[in-house]
């Protein structure tokens, strides 16, 4: 008897059967009631089937690939842990970049998981719904693998133990937190432009890659492994971001001005978050990969420039703050690290003034600005520190109402002048750090008047433990805020020089390399 063998399904057929064919048009309920969030943002979609998923990935294949990646990743992590891989990193200062990553970035991976799960439910087309579902799963996998990888460092070093608690409280963490809260509280289309496009496509190479290549350059196999494991997902995310923006723009000409406003907004919001990456690249990595300026030139000016040239055929223009961001590449990292040097008592990682050798590198990478504006500052700090007067700023700074960063950014074209912008809404003044942040505020003041600004919250008395007594004569506000942050004074904060991390690392490395 002849065997009847069914023909194996092609990729396209499998994709159709397992994604779009699983969707249906409801009849008991109105489509509008099932997908209630697809109209209020003003975006018009006429045919959801026009969305093309370039990966045509189905869930069964997804699980298979991801399981394989997890097996490899955990094998590397086990080897790293068992071999005391943490002692192989370039210098203990490097470990502070991981603290910054764990407190500032990993919680965003989790929020991205929630965001894509929400959007994946709300978009009315089966194609983007499935793509968002997969991205949602990717994002929670990234959060988990990062937490697992970095938990190894928590066994040995300070500043890792309260990252989740701190993400919702510590002053500088309100920057990435409010960025994502802004996106997740927007509608599904804005979220897709904010995170799917602006963040994942335009800015991810400036966020994720510097940390992971920094890990590679500084001998950190553990962090490198989770980076590479995530990288293959990132290319899928970037493609989803690009496809979704093209899809929205092709659906109706009325969508263009709305999308352009979101691109302007989210480019600027994302760029402000990257401030933390800029200073990490130039000041926190003992062995640097490239300067922030070089990274900006490659990933933003070249790659981003090509992307916007491509989108020009839809009528999309380069985001509004682009020229300023390009000019600021000369200053951003130096100014940002000075903020952390100032407020080094209030962050759960160590800060330091760059060494003479570090400054030579900075002079070479920033020939037009470093020696003129920044070297005198670092030399002054170093001299003070030598005399036992390490400078810590103890007065709280003014924050931008939109990005929540201390108002240190200087005027476009004048690095000597802090930029101040002011708006009045319902009789109250609101202050922003730039034209970009002011415009975002002015477009949706009802949203940003709710900003939880850490400095204002401290003054309102909302950042102390229940045991604190602000009426007591010996009440020390900074000490009480640190308690509420769950940071231990002198252990988790202050200068790297003389820190427990520095001492332990040196002692353990000596043990590992001789008797």
């Amino acid at each position, binding site marked *: 008897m002849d065997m009847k063998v069914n023909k194996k399904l092609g990729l396209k057929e499998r994709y159709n059967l397992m994604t779009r064919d699983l969707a249906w048009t409801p009849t008991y309920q109105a489509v509008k009631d099932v997908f209630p969030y697809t109209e209020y943002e003003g975006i018009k979609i006429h045919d959801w089937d026009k969305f093309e998923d370039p990966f045509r990935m189905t869930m069964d294949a997804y699980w298979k690939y991801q399981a394989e990646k997890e097996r490899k990743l955990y094998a590397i992590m086990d080897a790293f842990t068992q071999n005391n891989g943490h002692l192989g990193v370039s210098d203990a200062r490097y470990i502070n970049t991981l603290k910054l990553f764990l407190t500032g970035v990993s919680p965003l991976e989790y929020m991205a998981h929630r965001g894509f799960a929400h959007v994946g439910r709300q978009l009315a087309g089966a194609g983007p719904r499935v793509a968002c579902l997969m991205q949602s799963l990717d994002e929670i996998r990234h959060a988990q693998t990062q937490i697992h990888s970095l938990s190894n460092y928590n066994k040995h070093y300070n500043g890792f133990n309260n990252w989740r608690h701190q993400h919702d409280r510590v002053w500088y963490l309100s920057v990435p937190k409010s960025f994502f809260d802004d996106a997740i509280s927007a509608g599904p289309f804005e979220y897709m432009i904010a995170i799917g496009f602006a963040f994942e496509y335009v800015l991810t190479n400036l966020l994720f890659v510097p940390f992971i290549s920094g890990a590679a350059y500084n001998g950190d196999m553990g962090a490198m492994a989770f980076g590479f494991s995530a990288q293959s997902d990132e290319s899928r995310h970037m493609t989803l971001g690009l496809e979704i923006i093209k899809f929205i723009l092709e659906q109706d000409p009325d969508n263009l001005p709305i999308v352009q406003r979101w691109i302007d907004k989210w480019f600027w919001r994302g760029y402000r978050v990257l401030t933390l990456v800029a200073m990490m690249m130039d000041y926190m990595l003992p062995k640097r990969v490239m300067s922030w300026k070089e990274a900006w030139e490659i990933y933003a000016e070249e790659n981003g420039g090509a992307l916007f040239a491509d989108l020009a055929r839809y009528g999309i223009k380069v985001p509004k703050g682009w020229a300023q961001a390009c000019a600021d590449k000369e200053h951003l990292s130096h100014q940002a690290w*000075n903020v952390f040097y100032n407020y080094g008592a209030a962050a759960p990682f160590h800060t330091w003034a760059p060494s003479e050798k570090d400054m030579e590198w900075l002079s070479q990478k920033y020939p037009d600005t470093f020696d003129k*504006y920044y070297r005198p500052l670092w030399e*002054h700090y170093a001299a003070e520190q030598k005399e036992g007067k390490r400078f810590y700023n103890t007065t709280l*700074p*003014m924050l931008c109402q939109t990005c929540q960063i201390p108002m240190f950014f200087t005027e476009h074209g004048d690095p000597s002048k802090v930029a101040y912008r002011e708006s009045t809404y319902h009789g109250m003044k609101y202050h922003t750090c730039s034209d970009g942040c002011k415009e975002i505020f002015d477009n949706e003041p*009802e949203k940003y008047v709710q900003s939880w600004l850490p400095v204002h919250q401290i003054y309102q008395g909302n950042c102390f433990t229940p045991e604190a007594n602000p009426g007591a004569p010996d009440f020390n506000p900074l000490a009480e805020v640190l308690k509420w942050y769950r940071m231990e004074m002198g252990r988790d904060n202050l200068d790297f020089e003389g820190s427990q991390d520095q001492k332990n690392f040196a002692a353990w490395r000596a043990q590992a390399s001789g008797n």
Partner: protein
Amino acid sequence: MAVASVGKYEFAPKDTADKFPAPLLYIGWEDHLMLCAPFCVPLPPVMKFGDMVNGALPGMYGAHPDFAKIDWTKAEWSKSGQPWKPDFEKSLAENGLGHKDVIRFRTPGLTGIKGSFH
């Protein structure tokens, strides 16, 4: 422009004056970026402007080597970016300062460590 929303979108502003022990004042020192950002401080409206300059500012800016060299009679003040002349003998409120006002001072001749604007 208004927020696009599915329903009524009204929330109380977080930082009204009644929530603070005193109105907030933001203070910036031009040409000096070492103290990295303008300061935010709650100050009693009855405080004399001169008492703020002589009593509060040294604790905030004293670490800067230029601070001791300031000649306050020559300082140039601005409020919300516009030239402004405070009366040192009058209170903050009498000088017209209210919740979340921004004032800045420039100290001619002083441009930071080695003229670096820091």
